[in-house]
């Protein structure tokens, strides 16, 4: 489908380097501190990576997204969102199939088909007005669905919250990414920058909420993230109440 380009091979090499650096940091983290939270043995490393990510956001992402939100009309932004959501539908269809969820696979495939054609390449969400449900499944969820445990919490450079399982899944998802199949290097980069801006711009108001809600932003994010991932894998069907230490022993 794609011919390997030099930049892409370089990107592959760089990601491998990144992985090595990550592992080294993790090992260092293990050696220097006994685990306190069983779900987060790499807390020390994770915390410093979170700080790094916040710095990058402050100097780069947030200013860029703010400018983007000021300049680009809402109608265009909706089109941008729909376009990327359409690509995600295709990936969801594949993962729905892998999880043997025919409804998810069929809905998503239908959405992708309808929106790609009648929706002008995904710019308009026609499937939505046809009441075809939108689902979201990624490879990490597929692994979780088949019983692969999440492993410890892991904060990735720039990418942010993840787990060991989901990080492993990322390495498979990368080459399968839909935008990656666009041959023209400039178009591809352009699209990815656009996607990043759109997503970040949507979150501009969220920042202050998070700042105000958390005593410790790191633990808040971690605990909410792990719960959310678990819920996604169980499709929100988790009936078990979380353990409640105080009321158990009344």
């Amino acid at each position, binding site marked *: 489908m794609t011919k390997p380009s030099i930049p892409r091979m370089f990107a592959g090499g760089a990601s491998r380097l990144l992985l090595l650096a990550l592992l080294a940091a993790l090992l260092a983290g293990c050696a220097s501190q006994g685990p306190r939270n069983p779900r987060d043995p790499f807390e020390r490393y994770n915390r410093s990576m979170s700080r790094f990510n916040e710095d990058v956001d402050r100097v780069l992402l947030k200013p860029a997204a703010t400018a983007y939100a000021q300049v680009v009309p809402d109608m265009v932004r909706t089109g941008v969102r729909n376009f990327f959501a359409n690509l995600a539908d295709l990936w969801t269809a594949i993962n729905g199939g892998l999880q043997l969820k025919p409804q998810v696979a069929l809905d998503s495939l239908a959405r992708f088909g309808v929106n790609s054609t009648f929706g002008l390449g995904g710019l308009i969400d026609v499937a939505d007005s046809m009441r075809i449900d939108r689902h979201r499944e990624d490879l990490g969820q597929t692994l979780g669905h088949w019983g692969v445990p999440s492993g410890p919490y892991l904060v990735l450079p*720039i990418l942010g919250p993840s787990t060991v399982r989901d990080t492993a899944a990322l390495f498979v998802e990368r080459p399968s990414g839909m935008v990656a199949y666009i041959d023209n290097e400039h178009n591809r980069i352009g699209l990815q920058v656009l*996607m990043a801006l759109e997503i970040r711009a949507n979150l501009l108001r969220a920042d202050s909420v*998070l700042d105000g809600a958390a005593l410790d932003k790191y633990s808040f994010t971690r605990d909410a993230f792990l719960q959310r991932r678990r819920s996604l894998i169980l499709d929100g069907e988790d009936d078990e109440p979380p353990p409640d230490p105080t009321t158990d022993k009344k």
Partner: protein
Amino acid sequence: MPALPAHRHFPSASTGIAALRHAHPGAQTLGRKAQQMINRRSWISRLAMFAAVATAGLALASLPARAADEAPDQFIGRLSTDTLDAIKSDKGIAAGDMGRVIALVDSKIMPNVNFARMTAAAVGPAWRQATPEQQKRLQDEFKTLLVRTYAGALAQVTDQSITVKPLRAQPGDAEVLVRTEVKGKGDPIQLDYRLEKTPGQGSGWKIYNLNVLGVWLVETYRSQFAEQINAKGIDGLIAALADRNAKSAPKKS
């Protein structure tokens, strides 16, 4: 392997924004900066939704409790509708007036929440060692934190509606889970409540935990509270909460 859910009752709790996050596989191959931002930020979007909906959620529990024999799902349905209506008709709330928000919370929400239990669960085992005075301060500060955090989200309630899902509980259950969905623009948002039957006649049900998009409110605060208590004790936690509230007090810095 855990038993797999037999069927889905609703398609996806992800929001339009959160949904975008899952477009990231498509963006993985290059522009590290770009794609990395995407992933990191997508996560924040969930928190944002969490915050926004938790607000709505707390808000939904309005109106004083009524008949004792009201079913828990009816109770939630009634509260949801009434509270949404109250928010929509209050221009002060839409304008972000903190006084109006607090008034709404105190008059409509708090009577239907067992906030002592909520705070106790978030504080964990240390709650039982706290003096009554400390327990009261913890509740006050925690409540302020939640109200301040979510005041902004309340202002954004416009055309949302709530659907209560069929109850899966036995008639005699004293604690039940009620599932709802918030429908507005974009994908429906999962919003679940844990309710306890209050003892005695005529007192009905009270909310003691809230789940937005799979994230339980109490559990999300538990580690943070434990960190403070381990480092500086109960008073340390109270101080940290008060400090947080003082910082957020001036309107949006």
